[in-house]
C-alpha cells in the first residue's frame, strides 16, 4: 500500500483508492446485499412494509425447494450448464492446440481475428443469427434435407438449439485461456514425448493437458457461470420443454411481480454456481488467483 501511495502520490493515490471503493461498494456489495435482503423478506403490499408481517424468513427459498417444476428446472440448468462447458471444451481444446502449437503464426492471427469478429456484434444479434439458422424452414434443415441426411425438417429449437447457441456464444471464453496456456508450452516437450514413443493421446494426457490445466479450469469456470446465468439463448432458441432457471427468475420479477421470490431464486443460483466453481477448482487443484490471471 505504501508503494502504491509512493508511486501515485497522496492525492492521486487516495482518489484511485476511493474510486475502487465506490466501485466495490456500489457495483458489488450493495446489489448483493439488497438481493439477500429481498430474498429473505416476504412479498408485501407497500402498506405493510415495516409492519408486523415484514420479518426475515427462509420462506422464499423453501418455496423453491417445494415447487417440483422449478426445482427440476434448477437442477437441469446446473447440469446443462456443465454440459455446455464440457462441449465447449471439446470444441475448443483441439482448436486451441492447433492455434498454439501447429499453425503458422500468420495463420493463427487470421483465425483468431476471424473468431473474434462475430463478437463485435451484440450477443442478442448473434443468437438471433442462430435463431434464423436453426429455424424449421431455415438453412440448416434445407442443407440437411438436400444432402439426404434427414427426410423431414427437424425442430432444433429446444435443448439442441440452446446447447448450440451457448457453445457458440461462449467459445472465446474457453478458447483464449486454453490457447494462452498451451502456447506457453515449449514445443520440445511435445517432441520429447513423441520421441520417447508416446502416442498422440498420451502426449496430450500426460504433457499438454497437465500444463494447460489452469487454462482449462479457467475456461470451464467462465463458461459454466455464463451458461448458468444466460438468458438470451434459452429465451430465443429454447422451447417450452427447455426452460432455463434464469427465465423463471425473470418471470418472478417482471411477470409474477414478486421481486422477493425472484431474488431468492437468484441467490440460490449464485450460491450454487459459486459452490460448483470452487469444487471444480479444488478438483483441478488450481487456485482462484490463477484463474483471475
Amino acid at each position, binding site marked *: 500500500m505504501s508503494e502504491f501511495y509512493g508511486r501515485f502520490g497522496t492525492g492521486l493515490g487516495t482518489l484511485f483508492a476511493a474510486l475502487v471503493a465506490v466501485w466495490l461498494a456500489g457495483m458489488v456489495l450493495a446489489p448483493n446485499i439488497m438481493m439477500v435482503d429481498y430474498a429473505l423478506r416476504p412479498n408485501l403490499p407497500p402498506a405493510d412494509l415495516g409492519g408486523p408481517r415484514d420479518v426475515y424468513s427462509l420462506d422464499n427459498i423453501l418455496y423453491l425447494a417445494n415447487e417440483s417444476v422449478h426445482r427440476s428446472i434448477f437442477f437441469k440448468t446446473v447440469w446443462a450448464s456443465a454440459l455446455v462447458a464440457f462441449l465447449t471444451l471439446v470444441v475448443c481444446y483441439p482448436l486451441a492446440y492447433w492455434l498454439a502449437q501447429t499453425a503458422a503464426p500468420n495463420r493463427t492471427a487470421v483465425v483468431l481475428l476471424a473468431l473474434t469478429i462475430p463478437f463485435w456484434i451484440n450477443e442478442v444479434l448473434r443468437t438471433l443469427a442462430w435463431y434464423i439458422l436453426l429455424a424449421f424452414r431455415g438453412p440448416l434443415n434445407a442443407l440437411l434435407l438436400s444432402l439426404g441426411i434427414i427426410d423431414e425438417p427437424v425442430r432444433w429449437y429446444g435443448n439442441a438449439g440452446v446447447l448450440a447457441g451457448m457453445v457458440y456464444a461462449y467459445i472465446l471464453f474457453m478458447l483464449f485461456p486454453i490457447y494462452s496456456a498451451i502456447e506457453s508450452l*515449449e514445443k*520440445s516437450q511435445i*517432441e520429447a514425448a*513423441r*520421441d*520417447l514413443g508416446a502416442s498422440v493421446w498420451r502426449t496430450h494426457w*500426460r504433457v499438454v493437458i*497437465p*500444463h494447460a490445466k489452469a487454462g482449462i479450469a479457467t475456461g470451464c469456470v467462465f463458461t459454466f457461470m455464463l451458461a448458468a446465468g444466460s438468458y438470451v439463448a434459452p429465451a430465443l432458441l429454447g422451447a417450452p420443454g427447455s426452460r432455463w432457471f434464469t427465465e423463471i427468475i425473470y418471470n418472478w420479477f417482471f411477470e409474477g411481480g414478486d421481486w422477493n421470490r425472484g431474488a431468492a431464486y437468484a441467490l440460490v443460483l449464485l450460491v450454487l454456481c459459486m459452490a460448483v466453481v470452487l469444487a471444480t477448482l479444488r478438483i483441478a487443484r488450481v487456485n482462484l488467483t490463477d484463474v483471475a490471471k
Partner: protein
Amino acid sequence: MRFGRTQAVHEVSFTVEAGEFFSILGPSGCGKTTILRMVAGFLQPTEGKILIGGRDMRGLGPDQRPTAMIFQSLALFPLMPVWENIAFGLEARGVEKSVRRARAEELLRLVALEGFGERMPGELSGGQRQRVAIARALAVEPQVLLLDEPLSALDLKLRQHLRSELRELQKRTGVTFIYITHDQSEALAMSDRVAVMSAGILQQVGAPRELYDNPATPFVAGFVGETNAIGGKVASVEGGFATLDSPHGPLRGRASNGLSAGAPAKLYVRPEALAYGAEGGHTIAATIDRIDFEGAFALAYGTLEDGNSLIVSIPNTKLGSAPPIGERASFSFRAENAVVLADV
C-alpha cells in the same frame, strides 16, 4: 533438405560406426540441427536417405525409430517427478508400473542420482537435470542417442566437467552418440570422430587430431583451432609438399589435393607451430603489436609486412625470451607443420 526455397543441407553423406561418439561441428545455421532432426525423424529429407543399423528410416516417425534425442532445453516434463520422467518412454510402451519404477532406479544409479526419483525437475541443478535427460533417453534403449548442444546453457566449469562425464557414460553404455555442437573444443575433446559442416555442406569427417593436423578445406583450417593463413600462388607441387610464392618469399607446406601450379592458394600454419627466431625451415617477419598472457602460454599478435595479422603461441617457459613489442621479429616453422590448401 529444403525448407521452402532454402536449401538447408546438401551434399552430406557420412557413416557413423556403432558405439562411436560422433560429433557434428559447425557455426550456428550450418545445418547441423537439421541433420539431427532428420535422423530423429522430426524432419523427412527431401532427397537422399538415412539408414540406422542398415534399416531405411524413410517414412518412420520419431516414435518408431531406434533413436532418442536430448534436446537443447532438455525438455524434461516439469510436472512429473524425476522417476516418471525417466520411465516415460517405458510408460508409452505399456510397461507395468513396478517394472518402470525399478528400471528408473537402475538408470538413476547409472547417472549417479540415486535417491532423486521423487524430486521434481525444477528442484535439480543444471548438471543434475542434464543427467536425468540422459537417463530418460537411455531408458528406451536406443541404438543412437542424439544430443542437440545439451551443454550450451551451462557455465564453463560445469560444461567441462559434464564433457568427461558424457564421454565416460558413452563408453560405459556402448550406445552410439551423435553430438551437435558449435564449440570446437567440446567436439575435439569428446569425440571419436567429428564432421565439420558449413553452410549446409559437409566439409570434412575425421578424428579430432586429423582435422586439426590435416584440414581438408580452408573453412576447417579456420574453424577448428586458431590458424594463420598466408596467401600466394602455387609455384610447384612435389613429393607431397607444395611451394607457395608469397609476399614473404617462397614458403613450403604439405600439399593437399587439388593444387596446381599457378593457382591461388593459402598456407595455413598453427600459432604453436611458429617459433620465435630465424633458425629452422621457413621464416616470416612480423611486427609484434601485443602479447596476451593466457596462463600455460601467451599469444603474440603481430602484423605481417603485407598488413595481414599473425598469431604466435609462446609457451610460458619461453616467455623470458619473447619477442619485443613494437619491433620486427622473425618467426620460423617447419614445412611439415604447415599445410597448403587451394583457395575456393
